[in-house]
């Protein structure tokens, strides 16, 4: 049986719906030792800003039950190094490149997006949902007006289709999803991490230096599936789903809830081979269940 695993988002064709979640996979160099990057639908890079960002003080992570809290603070080398080093590295592989863009101000985002306009990358993912930086990040992502505004500004300058990455730290995910669509987003991705806190009772202090951090991992998966379902029903643009995917079964939940593609994040830390295993597992599921085209599964649960 000929299986079709490819999906299309904003005219970009992905060989399969499996991507990496920004910030968990660098630009693929480290995980390339374990996973054949050619097998992935796309590599979504760690967020890159106009200039290098030092990130937050350590400790930056803490394990929690079924998950982890991180407050890395978007440490990144800035767009110059990224264009010189990371894009040429990824171009060696037969996978799509989605560059995650972060900024503290509107101008920051625009500068990065303009720099990328003539680079050989396939899509942009705009991070308006990082809970760990004081300025920018989530500040743009929590009310629908600012989501729509920043989306429309970025769309004016972008050379590639734009994915807006949404925060789950909102009362109504459909409102920010619709706002992104109204601003001209080509797709949305969700969920970013849920703001959390862990206290180290032995040291009587916060487990991460930033006090709060983003909760990720399988502990948040049911919340993520629910939000992907709601968002997919609220907008017409494609949804990329993520949040605690550990295996192909988890990935298929998101796809059936309405995600055109999925991203693997925290699971990479638990098992560096996860992304490849999810690709294999989806194919196995399709074979076992007589599914010829993955697209038949997208949003099949209503």
């Amino acid at each position, binding site marked *: 049986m000929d299986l079709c695993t490819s999906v299309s988002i904003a005219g970009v064709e992905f060989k399969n719906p499996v991507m990496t979640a920004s910030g*968990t996979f*660098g630009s693929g160099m480290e995980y390339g030792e374990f996973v054949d990057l050619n097998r992935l639908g796309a590599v979504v890079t760690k967020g890159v800003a106009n200039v290098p960002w*030092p*990130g937050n003080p*350590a*400790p930056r992570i803490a394990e929690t039950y079924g998950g982890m809290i991180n407050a890395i603070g978007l*440490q990144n080398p800035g767009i110059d190094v990224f264009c010189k080093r990371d894009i040429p590295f990824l171009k060696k592989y037969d996978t799509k490149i989605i560059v995650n863009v972060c900024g503290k101000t509107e101008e920051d985002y625009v500068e990065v997006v303009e720099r990328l306009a003539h680079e050989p990358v396939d899509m942009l993912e705009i991070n308006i949902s990082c809970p760990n930086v004081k300025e920018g990040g989530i500040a743009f992502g929590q009310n629908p007006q600012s989501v729509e505004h920043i989306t429309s500004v970025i769309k004016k300058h972008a050379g590639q289709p734009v994915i807006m990455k949404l925060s789950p730290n909102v009362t109504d995910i459909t409102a920010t999803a619709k706002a992104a669509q109204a601003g001209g987003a080509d797709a949305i991705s969700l969920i970013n991490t849920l703001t959390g806190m862990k206290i180290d009772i032995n040291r009587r202090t916060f487990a991460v230096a930033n006090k709060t951090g983003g909760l990720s991992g399988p502990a948040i998966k049911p919340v993520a599936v629910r939000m992907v379902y709601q968002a997919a029903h609220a907008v017409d643009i494609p949804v990329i789903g993520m949040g605690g995917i550990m295996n192909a079964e988890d990935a298929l939940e998101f796809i059936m809830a309405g995600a055109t593609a999925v991203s693997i994040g925290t699971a990479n830390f*638990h098992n560096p081979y996860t992304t490849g295993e999810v690709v294999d597992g989806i194919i196995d599921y399709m074979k076992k269940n007589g599914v010829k085209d993955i697209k038949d599964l997208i949003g099949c649960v209503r």
Partner: protein
Amino acid sequence: MAQFREEAKVLRQEMLGKDIYSLTLATENIAREAAPGQFVSLYTKDGSKLLPRPISICEVQDNAIRLVYRVVGYGTKEFSGYREGEKVSLLGPLGNGFTLKNKKAVLVAGGIGIPPMLELAKQLRRESPSLSVTAVLGYRDSNTFLVDDIKKYADVVIATDDGSLGVKGNVIDAIRKEKIEAQIFYACGPTPMLRGLKNYAEEINVEAQISLEERMACGIGACLACVCKTKEIDEHSHVHNARICKDGPVFDSREVEL
């Protein structure tokens, strides 16, 4: 440097002292590649605990590695319950390890920073049989571990916090008191100890390779959780933050800020 994810069989588990355990694992690939000062990521079997535990390699044997670790939380508690024949999932060898130099070496370690000194002492002895190797080991009290193993390859000086054994005080106190001379220091231990050694080594202008520790997630350099401040702009992120898991854990003391 090749890294491997393996399902290794437990060959031996021993308790060396209160909360200190020695776990020997059969692993051909990791044992073949491992260098002193490198570490492995050990995964728990409990699916609610996602992150691997970074544990330094204490000793490399034929087709096996030995890990000596302290039970500090639920992950290491699980490890301490592993019995002979059980399978354990691990990734390694990770990090850079110590760079062995042909110089009169003083190994300085405290607490659970002591284990990597065993393989280091063994290899230094093997590489430069004519040069002296001294290990200055700091413990809380007379409940020591690995002393006899390290004595096979190095002269051992002990410091204890409570003075119940060796020099009363820390490892730097012991180095000063015993007038231990070094052409190079190799160190691993708690940050205050490393800070003290860094200052001492710079004061007397002797090279010190220090092994740092921080909470880690990926263990392979991707997530940027375990960073330390560096004097110069780091190669990876260009922001004075080196990755302890990938660029380290061993750094020239002059290159990092503690």
